[in-house]
C-alpha cells in the first residue's frame, strides 16, 4: 500500500485503505516525539510552508513541530483574510510562494474550497489544515489515531458527535472517516445546527438525533464540538446559558454511554459551555492525547506528501533513518 495522492484536501475522497495507511504511518512516527532527540532526517532539505489565513495556534504549531521533527525547514505565514480581500488575491499569494519552490504548502482558510483552488494552480502538494465549514482532514486522522490507540479498532464502535454540526469542518471530516472505517456515527445538537439533510452526507453508518441523550446512548466515544461564536453571523441558539444546560456535556450524560466511554474535543474548549470541567479534566477525557497524536499524524502526512518526487537513489538513504523505535511497523508503513 502506498499513498500516491499529491494533495490531502479532504477525507471524503480517500478510501478506507488510504486512511488506514495514513494512520499506520502516523503510528510509526509517534515514537519520535518520545525520544530525547526528537528529530529524524526524513525531510531534510525540504521546505514546508504553513500558510494560515485564519487564526490558529494549535494546528499551526502542530504542523510546524511535525515539519521540524522531520528535519524540514518550516516557514509560517499568517495572513489575515481581510487584508487579502483588500489586496493580493489568494492565487497571487500562492504563485509568489510557489516561486520559492516549497515542497509542501499547508493551508488554512476561512473559505471552503480555498485549498482546492490552490491545488489547481500550484505545483506543490497542498495539505488542507481546515477550510471554512468544509473539512479538516488531519483533525479527523488524529481523532481516529486516538480512538484506535484506546479502543484498538474503529469498526463497530458507536460514536456520538455533539454540537454545531452545520458549521463544523471537524464533524464533516470525522463523519467521512469514521463511517468509511465502519463505525456507527450519531450526530446531535440544536435543530438550527443539525440539518436533517446531514443524514444524506454518507450512504450508511450515520444517524441524526434530535436529543443529545439519544446520540450518547451506548456510545463508545463521545466527541464534543466547539461552539464557534466567531463563525456565526446570526443567532443559532438563544444564549450560552441555554446551550450549556441543554446541549453541554455533563457527567450524568455519560451514565447512558458505554462504561468504557472516552470523551474527545478538538479544542480549544469552552469550559462549562459545551463540556463541563469535570469531564474535560476527568479520566475519560483524551483531549491532550489528541494534541499529542496531532504531531504524529501531521508528520505522517508531511512525510507522505512532501517527499513527493524522491528519486530511487535517494529513497534508501532516507528510509532507515525514519523512526527506529517500532521497526516492524516502519517497514510496513513507509514502504514505497
Amino acid at each position, binding site marked *: 500500500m502506498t499513498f500516491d495522492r499529491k494533495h490531502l484536501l479532504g477525507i471524503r475522497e480517500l478510501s478506507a485503505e488510504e486512511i488506514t495507511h495514513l494512520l499506520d504511518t502516523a503510528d510509526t512516527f509517534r515514537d519520535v516525539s518520545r525520544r530525547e532527540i526528537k528529530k529524524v532526517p526524513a525531510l531534510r532539505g525540504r521546505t514546508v510552508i504553513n500558510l494560515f489565513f485564519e487564526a490558529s495556534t494549535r494546528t499551526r504549531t502542530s504542523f510546524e513541530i511535525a515539519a521540524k521533527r522531520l528535519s524540514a525547514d518550516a516557514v509560517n505565514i499568517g495572513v489575515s483574510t481581510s487584508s487579502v480581500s483588500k489586496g493580493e488575491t489568494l492565487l497571487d499569494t500562492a504563485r509568489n510562494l510557489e516561486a520559492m519552490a516549497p515542497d509542501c504548502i499547508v493551508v488554512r482558510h476561512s473559505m*471552503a*474550497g480555498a485549498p482546492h*483552488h490552490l491545488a489547481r494552480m500550484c505545483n506543490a502538494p497542498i495539505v488542507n489544515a481546515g477550510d471554512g*465549514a468544509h473539512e479538516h482532514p488531519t483533525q479527523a486522522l488524529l481523532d481516529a489515531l486516538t480512538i484506535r490507540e484506546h479502543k484498538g479498532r474503529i469498526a463497530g464502535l458507536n460514536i456520538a458527535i455533539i454540537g454545531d454540526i452545520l458549521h463544523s469542518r471537524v464533524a464533516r471530516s470525522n463523519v467521512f472517516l469514521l463511517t468509511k472505517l465502519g463505525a456507527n456515527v450519531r450526530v446531535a445538537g440544536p435543530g438550527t445546527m443539525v*440539518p436533517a439533510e446531514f443524514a444524506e452526507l454518507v450512504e450508511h453508518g450515520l444517524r441524526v438525533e434530535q436529543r443529545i441523550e439519544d446520540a450518547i446512548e451506548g456510545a463508545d466515544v463521545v466527541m464534543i464540538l466547539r461552539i464557534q461564536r466567531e463563525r456565526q453571523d446570526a443567532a443559532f441558539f438563544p444564549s450560552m446559558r441555554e446551550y450549556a444546560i441543554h446541549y453541554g456535556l455533563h457527567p450524568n450524560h455519560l451514565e447512558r454511554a458505554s462504561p468504557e466511554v472516552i470523551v474527545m474535543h478538538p479544542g480549544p474548549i469552552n469550559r462549562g459551555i459545551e463540556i463541563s470541567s469535570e469531564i474535560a479534566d476527568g479520566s475519560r477525557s483524551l483531549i491532550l492525547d489528541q494534541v499529542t497524536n496531532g504531531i504524529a499524524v501531521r508528520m505522517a502526512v508531511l512525510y507522505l506528501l512532501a517527499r513527493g518526487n524522491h528519486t530511487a537513489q535517494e529513497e534508501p538513504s532516507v528510509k532507515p533513518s525514519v523512526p527506529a523505535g517500532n521497526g516492524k511497523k516502519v517497514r510496513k508503513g513507509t514502504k514505497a
Partner: protein
Amino acid sequence: MKLLVANGYVIDPSQGLNSGKNLLIEEGRVAGVLDRGEPLPKDVEVFDATGLMVAPGFIDLHVHLREPGQEYKETIATGAAAAVAGGWTSICAMPNTDPVNDSPAVTRFILEQGARAGLANVFPIGALTKGSDGKELSEMGELKNAGIVAVSDDGRSVPNAGMMRRAMEYARGFDLTVVDHCQDQSLSAGGVMHEGRWSLILGLRGMPATAEEVDAVRDCALARLTGARVHLAHVSTRGALEAVRRAKELGLRTTCEVAPHHWALTDDAVADYDTNMKMSPPLRSRDHVGALLEGLRDGTIDAIATDHAPHHADEKGLEFDQAPFGITGLETAVGLAFDLVHQGVISLERLVELCATNPARIFTLEDRGTLRKDSWGDITILDPEHQWMYDSSKSKSKSRNTPFDGRSFKGAAVATIVAGRVVYLHPDFARITASKQSEFAAGG
C-alpha cells in the same frame, strides 16, 4: 432591398406554420411567406436555407450587458455579437448597470450603443425602483417614453411586499411587465449555492429553494391583487413553478422563464468549487430539474432566457465564496435547448414558441416573435442536426465564464438575420448548406 430566405422549413407558431416555404423580406420587414414555386419578385437576393429551419428571430428576455459602467466585463457591442452568434436577434438588457438604468439618459445611451453595434436589437429594461434599492418607484412613464420594454430590480428582489404591490400597480398604468428575481433575502442571505446535500458536503452556505418559492408565491398573490403583468425571471424550483401554474389556472397575467443551465446542470457540479458553477439562482438538485422539464413540457414555462452574466476572469478566479454570481449563456442556450428537442422533452415548434413567440408577447414587443406580413424581418436559422463543440476561447463575449467550455452539442443557430440583414453566418455555413443540398438532392 429584398431578401428571399429560400427552401427552408418555416416554423412560426404564431400562425401555426411548419412547412417548406420561402420567406420574402422587403425593407426590413416580412413581405410574405410564399409557397415554393410561387413566382419571385425581381432583384431579390437569395439566402439558401435548404434543409434548415427558418424561425422568427429569437428574443432573449434576460441579459446583462454591463455597459455603462463595467465595460471590462462586456460592452453592448460584444454582448450583441455574442447574441447573434448564438441565434438571438433581440436581447433585453437588465438595468443593473453602473449607473443603474433608472433614468431616460441611461435608457437612451443603451439604445444608441445597441444601434451603433448594429447586430441584435437591444431593448433596455428599466429599474423598478430608483437605484434598484427597493425604496422609491422609478420614473416608469419617462423610462417608457425613452424606450424601455419592462421594469425590474433583477439581481435583488424587492424585499418589501408593500413596495412591490405599489410598483405593480404603477407599472400596470403603463402596461409595463414587472420582472422579478424571486429570492427572499432573509432566507438566502450569505448563500452561494443550492441548499441541500451538496452544500452540506462542501461546507458552503446554501440558498434554500424555499427562498425562491416564498417570493414567487408572494408575487403571484400580488399579481392577483393588482392585475399587473408579472414575469418571474429564471425560475429554478418546483415550488416557484407550482405557484406560476396556479396563477395561470386563476387566469392571471403571470409568466415565467427558465435559464438553460438550470435544466442542463445540477448542484453536484459545484463539487470541485468551480466558480463557473456559481450563479443566482443556483444550480438545483435533480428533483427541481425534473420539475423544470415538466414545466417546459406542459407549458407552465413560457420562455427560455439566458441570464447571460459576463464576469472577468480575475473575478471568477477568486475563492468560491468571493467570486461573483453568474455565467455567460448567449452562445450555448440554443444548443442546450436542442438537447430538450432531441431528448423528446419539447418539439421544435415549442422551442420556437419558448424562444420567440412567447418572449415577444411577454414584453409586448410589437411585430416581433412572428413572421406575419409586415412584422420585422428578424429571423433565426436553425440546423437541428449540426454537431459542434463549444470553444469559449472563440467566444464573441468579452468574458469566458461558462461551465460549458468543451461541451458537445447537436443543433445550432447557423445564421441570424435582423431586419432583413444577415448579421451572423456560422463559420462553416457554406459546408453545412452544401451537405444539406446534396442530402436534399439524394433523398429527394
